[in-house]
């Protein structure tokens, strides 16, 4: 085997090794991208006015209400409890809305505890990426919240 042939074979081998490295790195990048492209399910207790607005305009903040972000619950049961609290404060019944939040948006979310439950805050500029996917057939109301007779 000539020196040229050895050099050629060596070069070919190195090239194939580099190709394999790039390919494997590319595969993991694609896998990571797919992983990041998933979504997280959250819930929100919303008034009928907000539900109607969501149907026509997607998830957004109403004028005079929250402006910098919007709060969601991480479970339907927590959202139901938030709904009961809302009703106790303003007497407006809520409906539970299920939403899908892209994981890329979840990276911008902040999570904290409010009223003893986990709350997820999505920044206002990310809300157009949040997709309502359904209503839960449940209107959370506390039982006789104000102790009215005959409630």
């Amino acid at each position, binding site marked *: 085997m000539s020196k040229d042939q050895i050099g050629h074979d060596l070069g070919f081998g190195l090239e194939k090794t580099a190709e394999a490295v790039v390919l494997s790195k590319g595969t993991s990048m694609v896998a990571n991208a797919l992983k990041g492209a998933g979504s997280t399910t959250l819930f929100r207790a919303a008034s009928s006015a907000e539900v109607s607005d969501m149907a026509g305009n997607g998830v957004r903040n109403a004028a*005079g209400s929250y402006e910098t972000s919007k*709060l969601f619950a991480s479970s339907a049961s927590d959202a139901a409890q938030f709904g009961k609290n809302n009703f106790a404060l303003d007497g407006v019944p809520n409906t539970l809305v299920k939403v899908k939040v892209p994981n890329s948006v979840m990276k911008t979310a902040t999570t904290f505890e*409010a009223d003893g439950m986990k709350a997820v*805050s999505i920044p206002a500029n990310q809300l157009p990426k949040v997709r309502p996917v359904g209503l839960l057939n449940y209107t959370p109301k506390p039982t*006789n*919240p*104000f102790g009215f007779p005959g409630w």
Partner: protein
Amino acid sequence: MNVMYDIVKILAKLELFAGYNMRQWPFSSKYRPIFSFSNDPWNKISGSIDLLNEQNYFEPGSTGIVQISFIKGFLNDSCLQPGQTFFISEDGSNNLGKGEVIEVFSEDS
């Protein structure tokens, strides 16, 4: 299960901050931010702000007297004292305003 909700109402002086990362638009009655009281800062609770004197909006940069309703069970009793101070936020961390309890004036059950 018969769950009773005790609502406690306070009068408070509220200042809504203006500037970068703050609200740019006013809020109206029934605004429900997250409150954290200075003497119990890790306890974040929601409360409902009602504007008084037929005021329709509360502008960023302004200070005024408002009525706030809380669900009592979530609130440490020591917060319900005149002079206690609190912050409001929408995400539990970025303070958008601050206030001070003036009077605890009604408690319904």
